[in-house]
């Protein structure tokens, strides 16, 4: 009997950074057996340097500890629910072993830029000869076809070309005051994982695998659909409006009591506005003709926001939120990554999962965005140490003898400690 949707699916993750490894973790969340492939000559860049300087925010209290590459925050946050295997693909013998693994796998995913898998002989058409129904996902900045197919990209360069940087800024300001964002990687990862599940459905129906071609930029652009259609329908190029809304007012982030504390409030309707006024104690300014209709509130939103902030800035954000939400007005304090760990709602729904880690002890990892009670989801494995599952995969899955496995270690085709600082 199955316990999880993708329980019988094996995924080879030949990826690094965020988008690829996170997509693989999302498949792991659904029960797939994910094998993350790295080399001791070249590990996932998010593991950082082999012997980094102490004192950075990447390590617990700044201390890199005995195995810094296994506790770097960039790696730990992106690699749950998978196994770790090391194998040097730059040597013929390594490539042969990789192809043996492909034969036993359902999905291969990589975020090498177009042209690299081809050069290594591990592109879709090569892998299909080994495993005819393989599903191979390639994900890079611009996808597998078109004039920019071979362009290198990272989240920080996909975000600007996707239109998000242009539209995300402060109202009336140019993108120079907008900050860098890696959200493209998250959008890419969730879209990629969904695309693989769709391809698995297709394979179950037809027996056929396929090549899934993902461009990180194209995963982000649909999230701006209404701005795109405003251009294609009306010729209008929208500009950034910060935390405001093109029709609603009030709709903003306001200072709350405390240092750098904020509360978001939005009024969708006349009723929301009346209820906000009630919560504020029906102040005289709110009766001004300037704020009488939704259109006049929107036109006078600068003054409106100043009045509202005079009320919010002396109150704790949580108090404002519970007062307004009781009246049905959309409102929330701004919750950062530290606050979210102690938010009662997150605890009540069991969002964070406490994980026991060999080096880190007990710590809280973000859980899943969904609950699926008839399966047993959740975090089954903490982010694995480099090469943690070598022996199990080489001698178990691939059936190598103990001496053949010892030879791989001897030849540095595999191992559990990086050889040098990665380039």
């Amino acid at each position, binding site marked *: 009997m*199955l316990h999880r949707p993708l329980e019988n699916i094996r995924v080879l993750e030949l990826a690094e950074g965020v988008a690829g490894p996170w997509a693989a973790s999302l498949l792991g969340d659904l029960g797939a057996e994910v094998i993350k492939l790295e080399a001791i000559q070249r590990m996932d*860049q998010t593991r950082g340097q082999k012997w980094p300087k102490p004192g950075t925010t990447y390590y617990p*209290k700044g201390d890199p500890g005995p195995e810094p590459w296994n506790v770097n*925050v960039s790696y730990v946050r992106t690699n749950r629910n998978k196994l770790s295997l090391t194998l040097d693909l730059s040597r013929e013998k390594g490539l042969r072993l990789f192809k043996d693994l492909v034969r036993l796998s359902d999905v291969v995913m990589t975020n090498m830029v177009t042209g690299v898998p081809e050069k290594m002989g591990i592109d879709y058409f090569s892998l299909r000869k080994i495993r005819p129904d393989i599903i191979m996902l390639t994900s890079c900045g611009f*996808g597998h076809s*078109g004039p920019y197919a071979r362009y*290198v990209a*990272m989240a*920080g*360069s996909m975000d*600007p070309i996707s239109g998000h940087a242009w539209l*995300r*800024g402060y109202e009336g300001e*140019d*993108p*120079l005051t907008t*900050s*860098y*964002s890696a959200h493209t990687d998250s959008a890419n990862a969730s*879209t990629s994982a*969904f695309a693989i*599940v*769709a391809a698995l*459905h297709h394979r*179950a129906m037809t027996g056929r695998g*396929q090549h*899934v071609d993902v*461009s990180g930029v*194209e*995963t982000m652009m*649909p999230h*701006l*659909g*209404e*701005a795109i*259609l405003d*251009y294609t329908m*009306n010729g209008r190029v929208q500009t950034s409006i*910060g935390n405001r809304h093109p029709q609603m007012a009030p709709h903003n982030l306001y200072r709350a009591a405390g240092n750098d504390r904020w509360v*978001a409030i*939005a009024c969708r309707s006349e009723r929301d506005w009346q209820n906000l006024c009630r919560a504020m104690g029906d102040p005289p300014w709110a009766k001004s003709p300037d704020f009488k209709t939704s259109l006049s509130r929107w036109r006078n939103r600068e003054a409106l926001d100043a009045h509202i902030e005079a009320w919010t800035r002396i109150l704790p954000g949580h108090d404002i939120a519970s007062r307004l*939400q009781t009246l049905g*007005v959309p409102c929330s304090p*701004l919750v*950062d990554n*530290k*606050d*979210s760990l102690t938010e009662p709602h997150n605890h009540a*729904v069991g969002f964070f999962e406490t994980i026991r880690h060999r080096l880190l002890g007990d*710590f809280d990892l*973000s*859980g899943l*965005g*969904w*609950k*699926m*009670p*008839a*399966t047993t989801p959740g975090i089954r494995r903490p982010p694995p140490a480099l090469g943690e599952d070598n022996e199990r995969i080489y001698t178990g899955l691939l059936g190598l003898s103990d001496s053949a496995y010892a030879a791989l270690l001897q030849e540095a085709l595999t191992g559990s400690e990086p050889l040098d600082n990665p*380039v």
Partner: protein
Amino acid sequence: MTSPPSALHGITVLDLTQGVAGPFCTRLLAGYGADVLKIEMPGRGDVSRHAAPFYRDSPHPESSGLFFHLNGGKRSITLNLRSPTGRAVFLHLARDADLVVESFRPGTMARFGLGRAELLRANPFLVLSSISNFGQSGPYRDYEAVDLIAQAYGGPLMYGQGLAEKTPLKFAGNSGLYYAGVMAALAAMGAVLFAKMGGPGQHVDTSIVHALMSSPEHKPISAQYTGAPTPRATSVSRWSYLMGFYPCKDGFIGVQGSGRGETWWPRVYRMMGMPELERDPRFSTPEARDANRDDFDALWYTWLADHTRQEIFAAATAARYPLAPVYTPADFATDPHFTARRFFEPVRRRALGTILQPGAPAKLLGSPWLEGQPAPALGEHNHQIYAGRLGYSAKQLAEMRSAGVI
């Protein structure tokens, strides 16, 4: 040779969602081939029918660009689930469906007599997928939200964005809701696949704020490592050198090229046509670069000011450096790359003509995305479904219409 079926061909979806997150979830399912029947309240229909932008700025329920974008490839019927007849019709449809997606306030489906228990009794293999602001349980279960609120509570798109000396800054438009919609589609398809392989039907509970919080951009581990929240950058420090946005001759460029510094800096110098900088003692080590940042900035900003976005993009590409122009929707809708990939597809609307819309967010090369599918008019498929599929007579339909059921 016949062409292969679309990836989700054969999956039947009843779509009760409205707004953004739910409809984007079912839009993905429809685009990849699922049969999505959108069920709207008679009269007003989906709230996004009433949301800007409108075609030629004339507000009308059949001309919302947001609705067009989110509802391509679906069929629309109207049905009042509050009426006993409406409920019976829905249960009838649910018997043959694989998936019901809903985005009402938690508890609404149960009030309609269409909760998990009733639906699974009608069809034990059915997946009921609920998409809600804060999830189906917990103290904030009934909290109201729009994208701004979801981003404020859900975190990673907002608390680290913007500058330290100003307000935190949300992602544009409905970015948070779209992202949650993708996660909901992933979870729903996982559950559908599970049921197809012999697992039971079930209720999948997707929480918009927790979908956002589950993103790797949310870094609760950082907070546990440092004991402090991740700060916003200040305008002087930014995060690291050569990261973020810079002005050039005709606009702006965005760059991510720090991290393992020595990989990228020679590429920066090559991009600028100044490979000799790599041997310049002022710029050849990280320490030297820090000490001589003003000298580098003088060269960098001058070079940027002399070149256009496209010239810089081309130079970056030749040097294999991850830099790209800041594009507006006008820029990428006409860019030759996305044109060559047919990312934007013409969608014909009978009354309005042809509108260019974003297409597949991922290309499944062995199973076609359904291109150019228009969003339905409110109740466009009532006759097809009620008379054609369910066999109601003209008289029965007239009665249902006058009773406000359809």
